[in-house]
C-alpha cells in the first residue's frame, strides 16, 4: 500500500527520532577511529591486552557454564516428568531478576575468611590460620564467571526449553523406535534442531557478560568495561574511552552477527503450531530424585540463598535501611524511569506508525537506527552519549562566551544526559513491543477508518491507541523496570550529588556495607521480577 500524501510530517518525526537516537553510536564510531597517542597508546602498551584477555575469558567462561547449567535443565523441564517440574519450569527463570552485584556481594560475604562458611570449617577441623588450609577465593575471574553464569543462564534455559517444546515429539519417538536411547536421541535430534536457538541465546548471554560492570568492578577483575570507566574517571580522556569502547563494539558486532545468523537458520525448521506440554519421559526413582535435586540446587544457589541473605540483612538492619535515603532515591529513580518510559513510548509509537503508513524497506530504517543503542553495554553507552553532548556544549559555550552567558555543562552535567542515555538504550524495548502489538491489528482497520473519513492522525488516536492500550502499558512497564535497574550508565552520567536506587545500592556494595541498603536491594530484586512474568507469557504465546 502506498500513501503519497501528507507524509512529510510523519517522515520528519520518524527520521529525526532515528537519527537522534543513533547519534551517540555514530559519534562513538567516529571518535574511536581518532588517534589519541597519549592515554590509549600507554594503555595499549601496558595493560590493555590483559583486559581484552580477561574480557574474552569472562565471555567464554560464562557462555560455557551457562550451557552446563541451562541445557540439562531445559531438556528436563521440556521433556521429562519429575517431582516439582511445573514449579521449576518458571522458578528457574527467577535468577534473571537478581542484579549481579548483589549475588556477588552475598557470596563474597558467605565465603570470605571472616564469613560463616570458613568459620564453620575452621571450627570443625581446628584450623588456626589461612596457612592451615586451602580455600578458593571468590573475588577472581573464575568467581565472576560463576556469579554471572548463575544470573544469565535463564536466557538459555528459557529459549532452549521453548525450542524443544516447538519440536514435534514424534521426531524423538521415531528416533527411539529406530533404536536410540533418550540420551542418544537428545544428541542426534533435539540438540541439532535447537542449534540456532542455542547459538542465539549464547550470543545474548555473551553480550550481557561483556556488558557487566558491577561484578568485575566489585571483584577487582580488570576487563574492558572497567577500563572504560577508569579511563574516563582516571584520565578524563573521552577519546581513549571511545577507543576501548570501539574494541567492545567489535566483539559485540561478532555476537550480533552470530545471533542474527542463527535465528535465520532456525526459521528454516518446521515449527509446531502448538507447544506440546506432555512429557515424553516419566522419571522415577533415583533419576527423578537426581533431576529434582539438580534443579533445586541451581534455584537455591542462584536465587533463594541470595534472597534469604538479603532478607536477613533487611530484618537485622531494618532501622538503618528503612530510611529517608531509600525513599529519596526510590523517588528520584521513579521520576526518571517514568519520564524515560513516556518518551520511549511516544517516540516508538510515532516511528512504528510511520512504518505502518509507508510499508517499504526504507521506512524500516528510522526504527532500526533508533534501536541501535540497545546492544551497547552501559559504560560504552555513557561514553557514546557524552561525545555528542560535550561537542554541542563546547560549540554553544564558545558562541555565547563573548556575551558572558556561557551555560557550561548544561547537557552532560545535568539529568539530561542520563535521560537521553536511557531513551537511547531502552527505545528498542518499546519499539519491539509496540511493533508486535501493532502487527496484530488487521490493516483493514486502517482502511476502514480512512474510508470513513478519518485522517492518519485521527486513525492513530481513535483506533490504534485505544486498541493498543494494553501493549503500550506493557511496553512502558518494561522500559520503566529496566531504567530502575540500570547501573553502569547511571554511575558514569549522574550529576553531582544525584543517586538512583541502583547507584545507591552499588555504593554500599563497594563500601562493604550492603546491610545498610538491604531494603533498597530487595526492592530492586522485586521490581526485576515483574518483567519475567511478561517474558514467560510472550514465550508461551508466541504461537
Amino acid at each position, binding site marked *: 500500500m*502506498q500513501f503519497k500524501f501528507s507524509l512529510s510530517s510523519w517522515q520528519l518525526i520518524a527520521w529525526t527520532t532515528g537519527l537522534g537516537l543513533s547519534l551517540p553510536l555514530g559519534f562513538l564510531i567516529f571518535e574511536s577511529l581518532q588517534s589519541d597517542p597519549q592515554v590509549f597508546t600507554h594503555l595499549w602498551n601496558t595493560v590493555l591486552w590483559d583486559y581484552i584477555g580477561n574480557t574474552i575469558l569472562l565471555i567464554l567462561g560464562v557462555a560455557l557454564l551457562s550451557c552446563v547449567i541451562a541445557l540439562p535443565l531445559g531438556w528436563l523441564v521440556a521433556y521429562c516428568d519429575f517431582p516439582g517440574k511445573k514449579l521449576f519450569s518458571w522458578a528457574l527463570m527467577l535468577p534473571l531478576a537478581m542484579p549481579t552485584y548483589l549475588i556477588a556481594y552475598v557470596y563474597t560475604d558467605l565465603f570470605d575468611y571472616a564469613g560463616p562458611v570458613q568459620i564453620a570449617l575452621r571450627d570443625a577441623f581446628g584450623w588456626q590460620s589461612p596457612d592451615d588450609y586451602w580455600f578458593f577465593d571468590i573475588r577472581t575471574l573464575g568467581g565472576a564467571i560463576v556469579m554471572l553464569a548463575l544470573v544469565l543462564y535463564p536466557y538459555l534455559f528459557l529459549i532452549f526449553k521453548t525450542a524443544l517444546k516447538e519440536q514435534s515429539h514424534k521426531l524423538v519417538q521415531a528416533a527411539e523406535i529406530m533404536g536410540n536411547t533418550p540420551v542418544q536421541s537428545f544428541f542426534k535430534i533435539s540438540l541439532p534442531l535447537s542449534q540456532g536457538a542455542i547459538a542465539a541465546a549464547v550470543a545474548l548471554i555473551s553480550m550481557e557478560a561483556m556488558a557487566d560492570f558491577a561484578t568485575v568492578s566489585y571483584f577487582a577483575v580488570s576487563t574492558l568495561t572497567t577500563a572504560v570507566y577508569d579511563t574516563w574517571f582516571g584520565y578524563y580522556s573521552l577519546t581513549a574511552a571511545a577507543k576501548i569502547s570501539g574494541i567492545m563494539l567489535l566483539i559485540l558486532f561478532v555476537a550480533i552477527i552470530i545471533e542474527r545468523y542463527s535465528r535465520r537458520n532456525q526459521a528454516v525448521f518446521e515449527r509446531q503450531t502448538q507447544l506440546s506440554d506432555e512429557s515424553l519421559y516419566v522419571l522415577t526413582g533415583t533419576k527423578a530424585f537426581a533431576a529434582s535435586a539438580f534443579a533445586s540446587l541451581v534455584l537455591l544457589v542462584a536465587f533463594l540463598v541470595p534472597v534469604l541473605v538479603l532478607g536477613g540483612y533487611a530484618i537485622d538492619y531494618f532501622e538503618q535501611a528503612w530510611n529517608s535515603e531509600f525513599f529519596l532515591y526510590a523517588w528520584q529513580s521513579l521520576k526518571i524511569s517514568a519520564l524515560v518510559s513516556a518518551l520511549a513510548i511516544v517516540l516508538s509509537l510515532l516511528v512504528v506508525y510511520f512504518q505502518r503508513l509507508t510499508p517499504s524497506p526504507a521506512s524500516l530504517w528510522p526504527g532500526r537506527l533508533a534501536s541501535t543503542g540497545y546492544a551497547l553495554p552501559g559504560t560504552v553507552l555513557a561514553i557514546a552519549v557524552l561525545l555528542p553532548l560535550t561537542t554541542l556544549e563546547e560549540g554553544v559555550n564558545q558562541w555565547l562566551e563573548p556575551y558572558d552567558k556561557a551555560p557550561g555543562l548544561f547537557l552532560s552535567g545535568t539529568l539530561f544526559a542520563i535521560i537521553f542515555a536511557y531513551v537511547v538504550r531502552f527505545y528498542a524495548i518499546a519499539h519491539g513491543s509496540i511493533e508486535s502489538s501493532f502487527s496484530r491489528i488487521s490493516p483493514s*482497520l486502517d*482502511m*476502514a477508518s*480512512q*474510508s*470513513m*473519513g478519518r485522517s492518519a492522525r485521527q486513525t492513530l488516536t481513535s483506533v490504534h491507541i*485505544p486498541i493498543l492500550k494494553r501493549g503500550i502499558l506493557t511496553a512502558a512497564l518494561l522500559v520503566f523496570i529496566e531504567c530502575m535497574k540500570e547501573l553502569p550508565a547511571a554511575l558514569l552520567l549522574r550529576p553531582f550529588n544525584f543517586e538512583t536506587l541502583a547507584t545507591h545500592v552499588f555504593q554500599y556494595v563497594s563500601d562493604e556495607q550492603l546491610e545498610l541498603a538491604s531494603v533498597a536491594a530487595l526492592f530492586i530484586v522485586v521490581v526485576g521480577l515483574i518483567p519475567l512474568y511478561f517474558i514467560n507469557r510472550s514465550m508461551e504465546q508466541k504461537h
Partner: protein
Amino acid sequence: MTAQLHLDKISFNYGERAVVDNLSLHLGDNEILCLLGASGCGKTTTLKAIAGLLRPHQGVIRLGETILCDDNQFVAPQHRNMGMMFQDYALFPHLSVADNIAFGLKAMTRVNKTNRVKEMLALVHLEDCAHRYPHQLSGGQQQRVAIARALAYKPSLLLLDEPFSNIDHQVRFQLIADIRRIIKDQRVSAIFVTHSKEEAFAFADTLAVMHQGKIAQQGTPQQLFHHPRSKVVAEFLGTGLYIDAQKQDDYHFDTQFGVVKSQQAVEGSEKSGQLYVRPHDLQLIADESGPVTVLSKRFVGTEYVYRVRVFGQELEVPVNQPEQEFLPGQKLSITITSHAVNFFTA
C-alpha cells in the same frame, strides 16, 4: 443517490510487475458490479485504487463529475465518501456495535447520530445487539454490522472485498441474498470483488471478469456464461469441452460428432476453429468405437456424474436418465444438442 463511476486506463505496478494494466471500467446508477477473477488477477488492487487506499501509477478515476485521481490530483480516501466492507470485516474491537456504526457519522448532532444508528440496526435486524462488542457476535452478525457501518454515512459507492469468504457454505447464499436486498433498499451502487463465480452469479447485476490486470469481458452473468468472448472467460465461468469444428454457415458447424446446429447466428469469416460445449449440452451414448472413455462415476443423489476423457481433455458430465448407466473403462460417443454455440477461432 449515487453517481456513476468511471475508470479510464488505470495501471498499477508492484515493482516491475503490472498488477493492473490499462484497465477501464464503468459502473452505472444503483448497479451492483462484480469484479471476478482468480487470485492475483489485480481485482483487489483495483478496488483499493477506487477507495484511494493506493494511487494508480496511471489513469483517471472519476465519480460523477468529480475527478478522484489523475496525473495531477489525488483525493485522499477520507475525502472520497466511499463505504468499504472488508474480508475480515475490520470491525473495531474496542468499540460497541453502535459505536462501530456511528464511527463514520461526523458533523451530525447526537440525536441524529443515535437515530441513524437505530435505523441501520433495524435495517440489518440487529436491534438487540447495539451494546455488544464485535467478539460477542457470530460471523454472520459481524458481517451485518460491517455492512451497516459502511452504509450508515450514505456513501456514494459501496466497495466489498471478498465479504463472503469467511462464511459457512450453508448460510452463505442466504446472507448474499440478505445483503443484496439491503444494498438495493439503500439504492447505492456497489462494486464487489470475489474469486467465486457462484457468489458473483448470486450477487451481481453485472460481471466483469478480470484476467492479468485487464477486464476480459463485462456484461450480465447470462451474457458472459452463454457468450464468452474468450476462452479465459468461458473456462472461468464453467467447464466445457473443446471440439474441433468447421463452419458451414452462421448456423451450422461440422464436427466429428455430426453437424451441430446453433440457435443463434455466429458471425465472422474464419471457417475453422473450436466449439466450446458446456456439459449440459452434451449427451453420452454407448458406442464401442467412440472417442470417449469413462474414467469414473459418482452418484450425487438426483443423477450420476461421469468423469470422461475426450481428446485428452477430462470433463465431468451429468446424466439424469437412470436407464443409461455406463461403467468405468467403457467407450462412448457424444451427441450435441442444439444450442447457442460458442465458436472460438484461433
